């Protein structure tokens, strides 16, 4: 105590700023703050990305201008952006629903592949006869994709619920396994003339595209946006309804926020763990089905440039809100579409990483208020 007094009486003779930065906890968070902070985080992330681009010898302004133009510059590219956004909406939803229960499903990528595999099985093994109508064929593909995705979600969900096995690792490992399994079918079973792809599906297995209606409405000519977008939007509404308007959604949110309270309230955590993982996997599987039904029309290698992983960032950026997932996915769809042409090839991934980092770091601004006060105010 004595020494403390002594220090107070003879303050150290070093230069002190007249202003002082104080960090104090926020008692309430204004509604406008969260989106503003997120937007600020993205801007800062893009600036850092620009800096790195400049260091490795690129022209950041040109690169960003190119991204904007190549993603949203005309009706044609906007349509392509929506094509990229479709799987992203679904993987984003898959992650959002699992993360809401604090279930870390990092396996949307593998579930996406399994969905694609499931849809292909229906078409390529002739389960649905070739002359079946489009309605029947697409319906069967849809069911198969969803079931395969859900199955791939069931495995880690069951292991987590019954065996307490960490789902982060299992979902990740199942990604690698799913990709190898699909590759086996692509190369070893359905390979078309030794190429890394199956033969093209019959027309009745193609999801309708906007350009299919170009005869009636010429403006649609060349637009590639396909019916999968409708699946994605419907899924967003369903997930939104489930999470915020249903009892099941209430249980999911309660388990996510406070598992102990949920347990005392009699909510079955074991069952919900399995069900939510299956729901999450089903959404990602639907993404895989819509990708091969709407875009590539056959099973081929590397159908996803990491949609499952980008879904994680999208879910987080949307604050796990299923409706917000849609516009965020469109933005990232643009980034992926335009980013393909940007060199070096790692740039889009790098920018995604920086955005995610900035985003979670900026959350501290929601919890704490940083005030600059005069030093004299301090008592």
């Amino acid at each position: 105590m004595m020494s403390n007094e002594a220090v107070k009486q003879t303050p150290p003779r070093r230069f002190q700023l007249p202003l002082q930065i104080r960090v104090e906890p926020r008692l309430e968070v204004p509604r406008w703050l969260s989106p503003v902070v997120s937007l600020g985080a993205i801007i800062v992330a893009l600036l850092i990305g620009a800096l790195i681009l400049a260091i490795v010898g690129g022209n950041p302004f040109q690169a960003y201008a190119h991204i904007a133009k190549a993603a949203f510059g005309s009706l044609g590219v906007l349509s392509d952006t929506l094509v990229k956004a479709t799987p992203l909406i679904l993987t984003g939803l898959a992650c959002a629903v699992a993360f809401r229960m604090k279930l870390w499903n990092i396996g949307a990528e593998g579930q996406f592949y399994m969905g694609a595999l499931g849809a292909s099985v229906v078409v390529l093994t002739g389960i649905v006869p070739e002359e079946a109508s489009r309605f029947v064929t697409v319906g069967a593909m849809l069911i198969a994709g969803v079931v395969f995705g859900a199955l791939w979600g069931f495995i880690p969900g069951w292991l987590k619920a019954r065996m307490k096995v960490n789902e982060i690792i299992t979902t990740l490992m199942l990604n690698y396994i799913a990709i190898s399994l699909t590759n086996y079918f692509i190369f070893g079973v359905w390979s078309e003339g030794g190429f890394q792809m199956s033969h093209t599906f019959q027309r009745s297995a193609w999801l309708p595209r906007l350009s299919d209606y170009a005869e009636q409405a010429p403006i649609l000519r060349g637009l590639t946006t396909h019916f999968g977008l409708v699946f994605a939007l419907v899924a967003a509404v369903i997930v939104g309804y489930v999470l915020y308007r249903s009892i099941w959604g209430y249980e999911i949110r309660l388990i996510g926020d406070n598992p102990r309270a949920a347990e005392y309230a009699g909510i079955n955590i074991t069952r919900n763990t399995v069900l939510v993982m299956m729901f999450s996997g089903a959404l990602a599987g639907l993404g895989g089905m819509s990708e091969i039904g709407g875009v590539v029309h056959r099973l081929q290698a590397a159908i996803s440039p990491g949609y499952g992983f980008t879904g994680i960032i999208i879910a987080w950026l949307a604050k796990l809100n299923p409706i917000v997932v849609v516009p965020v996915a469109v933005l990232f769809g643009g980034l992926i579409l335009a980013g393909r042409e940007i060199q070096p090839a790692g740039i889009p991934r790098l920018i995604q990483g920086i955005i995610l980092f900035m985003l979670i770091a900026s959350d501290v601004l929601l919890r704490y208020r940083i005030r600059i006060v005069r030093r004299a105010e301090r008592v």
Partner: protein
Amino acid sequence: MDPIIILHAGVATGTVLLFATIGEIFAERAGVLNLGLEGMMLIGAMSAFAVTVQTGNGGLGLLVAMLAAGILSLLHGLVTIHFQADQVVSGLALTFLGVGLSLVLGEGLSSAGAIALLPTYTIPVLSSIPFLGPILFTEQSVMVYVGYILIPLSWFYINHTRFGLHLRAVGENPTAADAMGVNVYRLRYIYVFVGGTLAGLAGGTISLAISPGWFSELTTGGMGWIAIGLVIFAQWNPWRAAFGSYAFGALRRTILDIQGPQMILGLRNPFFFNPYYGFFLQMLPFAFTIIVLIIGSREALRKRLGAPAALGLPYIRGERGL
């Protein structure tokens, strides 16, 4: 399919997993889960290879690799320790960042050509031990021997030193550690950094010794994630980590060897005559990780062992703790 060759190569490959796993054990023992191993290992592999190509000095390459990955890990430290962000999401962000950054900076590096690799040694007396000698002490990279030393050292450090006690306290009960006068924040930063440097060392070991070169993402090929699984199997114990790492290394080598033209149990090798079955072999390390996790989790349940109690939780001074 000579078991000695497989185990010899398994120990070499396992050394990579060993460094990464022990590094992660340090970070997790301090209460910080760092899922960014894959990204940090790639940064390490890339920078070690790049520096060695430029200077011809493998030791310098390893040093830069450790520093680069360590600095990257501090980013995770800052975000999770001071900003109290979710450790899972931050670790994933670190993975994206590390993978992206190493791809960007490593652009064009794969064509850099051959370099002088880290030396290999045969230990005079030990190598003549029957069975174990040819596996452990003959023609192994210097990094393998570093691994042998690291296992007992890290075990002793964690379990039998004052620093190790503080490390465990910070991960088990940070509030009590703080009351004891241990600087929780500082220790967490230090051990996140230690974890990062060891991940960088793991990456550098790949690109300079085990499978030399820079092959973008394939350089690590998911080994970072396997290491995270091994930490759980190891129950945060370096000895078990060593066992798991070497076993996985041997498994990887077996998978390569089994695709050769030999007979298995007198039958024609199906993997040689239908190479597409190789895709199932590729799944094995990942499937085994899941199996190993199940074993580890069951054992932990039975023995009532568990992760460090404060693993994944931010420590906020002055708030009610656990």
